[in-house]
């Protein structure tokens, strides 16, 4: 059914249609609207049987999900930013135990300085946690990916993180097609766990494993993610057959054929990039886009296939690996090993800074002329940075950098 609703509401409805049995919630922006909507669905009896547990932290949220999943329940939670970091320990535990929990990450920056707006620092920091990571481009895809996520998770007995841009998607009201319950039931069978806490068949889960088998346990986790490279496209194909639209999969190439320049990105910024690419194509530039839907597992072969013929690749990412630069770029380069081309890393949109078409046009023109620095910070206010660097050079007690920058901006605006 077509609805004009907020992205968070769409996700909540998709999660509810997936019949979770335990939902745990701890508030953090910009994820809160999702669990608020779910709490109403549970409290009203619309979503039943389902237990909605208001926990005292994100650490507890993931821990409750672990217990619920191990007891055979379909478990869901949502978080963002600092909350994702606070649940880092149980995050690794959930994947290590092979528990198919599904979680929404409403992508948001990580402090300090505290910042509630969108970037991918949070989920990127947990890229090696053993969770599958899928990134939504639109609200429709966010909604669809959740339904697919439960199937992928339960098929592999691995947790799945569905990442959607905080505010940009979670708080945007747009038209989405919400499936019918019967359609979802046909697509997503009831959860049949591979391991379950059952008094009739008592097992121990979570034993201590020493050097004798630890490598093998970790290898199996990797092997399951390699299996996901086949399963994710298969589930997307099934989804297309059942619901009649493309959502999910590993990668999403757009006008990549014969493109000399290919831009690689994840999430909602792909929309702006595609619009810009359309304009530049009209103007004669040979440029395309590769959207990554699956970041873990990282689709090395699909990326290599899509980028192998390009002359240059621009990886635009909303996260920064301080001390080296790109996170996505490093993975893309792994896919391109042995292929000689120009590679550029662009750090953009940190802490909610808008990525505008004007900036992208300028950026892609510079890239096409190979005038781009290997590591570029899009729209960086270099004068502002230089003034702060000058302060730190001349004053020992120069004070907190963030406050200095704001004061500097304020005086100049005033």
């Amino acid at each position, binding site marked *: 059914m077509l609805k004009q609703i907020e992205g968070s509401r769409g996700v909540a409805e998709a999660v509810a249609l997936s019949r979770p049995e335990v939902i745990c919630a701890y508030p953090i922006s910009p994820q809160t609207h999702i669990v608020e909507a779910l709490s109403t669905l549970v409290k009203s009896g619309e979503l039943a049987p389902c237990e909605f547990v208001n926990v005292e932290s994100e650490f507890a949220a993931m821990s409750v999900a672990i217990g619920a999943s191990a007891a055979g329940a379909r478990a869901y939670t949502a978080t963002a930013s600092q909350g994702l970091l606070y649940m880092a320990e149980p995050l690794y535990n959930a994947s290590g135990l092979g528990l198919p929990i599904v979680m929404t990450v409403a992508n948001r920056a990580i402090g300090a300085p505290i910042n509630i707006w969108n970037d991918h620092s949070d989920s990127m920091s947990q890229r090696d946690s053993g969770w599958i990571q899928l990134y939504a481009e639109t609200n429709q895809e966010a909604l669809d990916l959740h339904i697919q996520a439960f199937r992928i998770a339960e098929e592999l007995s691995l947790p799945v993180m569905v990442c959607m841009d905080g505010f940009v998607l979670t708080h945007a009201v747009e038209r989405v097609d919400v499936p019918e319950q019967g359609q979802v039931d046909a697509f997503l069978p009831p959860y049949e766990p591979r391991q379950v806490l059952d008094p009739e068949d*008592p097992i121990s889960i979570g034993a201590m494993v020493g050097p004798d088998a630890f490598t093998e346990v970790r290898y199996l986790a990797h092997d399951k993610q390699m299996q996901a490279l086949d399963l994710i496209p298969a589930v997307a194909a099934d989804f297309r057959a059942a619901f009649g639209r493309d959502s999910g999969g590993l990668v999403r190439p757009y006008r990549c054929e014969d493109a000399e320049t290919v831009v690689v990105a994840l999430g909602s910024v792909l929309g702006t990039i595609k619009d810009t690419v359309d304009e530049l194509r009209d103007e004669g530039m040979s440029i395309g886009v590769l959207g990554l839907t699956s970041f873990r597992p990282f689709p090395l072969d699909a990326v290599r296939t899509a980028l192998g013929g390009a002359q240059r690749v621009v990886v635009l990412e909303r996260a920064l690996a301080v001390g080296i630069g790109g996170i996505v770029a490093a993975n893309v380069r792994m896919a391109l090993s042995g292929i000689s081309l120009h590679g550029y890393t662009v750090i953009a949109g940190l802490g909610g800074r808008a990525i505008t078409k004007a900036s992208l046009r300028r950026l892609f023109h510079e890239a096409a002329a190979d005038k781009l620095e290997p590591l570029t910070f899009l729209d960086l206010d270099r004068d502002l940075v230089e003034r702060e660097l000058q302060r730190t050079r001349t004053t020992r007690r120069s004070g907190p950098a963030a406050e200095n920058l704001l004061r500097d901006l304020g005086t100049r605006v005033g």
Partner: protein
Amino acid sequence: MERVRFYQIGSYAAGNRLLDGELQTVQSDTHRTNSLNSGHRACQGCGEALGARYALDAVMRATGNQMVAVNATGCLEVFSTPYPETAWQVPWLHSLFGNAPAVATGVAAALKAKGRTDVRVVGQGGDGGTVDIGLACLSGMFERNDDVLYICYDNGGYMNTGVQRSGATPHGAATTTTPAVGPQPGNDFGKGKNLPAIAMAHRIPYVATATVADLRDLEYKATRAMKFHGARYLHVLVPCPLGWRTASNETVKIARLATETGIFPVFEAEDGEVVAVSKIRRRLPVADYLQPQGRFAHLFGATPREDVIAKIQAEADRNVRVFGLTDPEVPVHGVVS
């Protein structure tokens, strides 16, 4: 007419068969289950292994074996499940050090959603996992009144990692991070947490303390806890020969001295109010409890620290006064009255 009282210490081995079936000890039943099998790797004389087996066997009997155990990281977890072996005969899940109460909540929520409220959930951990790193999750579980019995096996320190101080380490005790050096040797006074009191402050249905000196009482409390629904807390004193530096055959004796000196009050509370206490029949000075333990040896050296012993005695005196441990007017719990 004078009221006659029968006292029996320890196992009830002799009088057990004279009791009603429900009052007979779990361990005396030839058909009893074994929640924690032999073959695990606990130290000789481990109080925690003893306490855990008695407590969980009692829960198994109370639930007709319909139970799930969730374990915090710690000695109990490590010695019971060295991969690929397990000593547990109940469905058992270990996740992390600080999240056992929340994981137990998750199991209980799943069982409720599946309509399996007949299956009951026990969370368990040592004092480090309970009073320190797990306290937030435990408080959350209490506050939501989730249907979980949480059992803390308190040996007063991080014994698994090599005897470091925890929030439950007694005042004056030497650990590897509160060494017996300097003018105030051992653990600082004025610090530490009283978790049974914290649990009671949550007004949960049932809070009780027990020791491995009175295993009948421990069974009784684990059994009684299962008669309640909602959050329940059982705090069990379990001497640790390694950390307390006691002989492995003295575990039960040391635990008994903890109660007979008033160091460790044994009581039950319902909805935040004490309803029964275990009386001290023959009260002993705290020095009798402290002196056999290597962790307090610095108090009894060439220059005995009478001042420190007096402060510990004052704490025991307070317990006796607050809980009425020797007061005939305060009700006595259990079958022994």
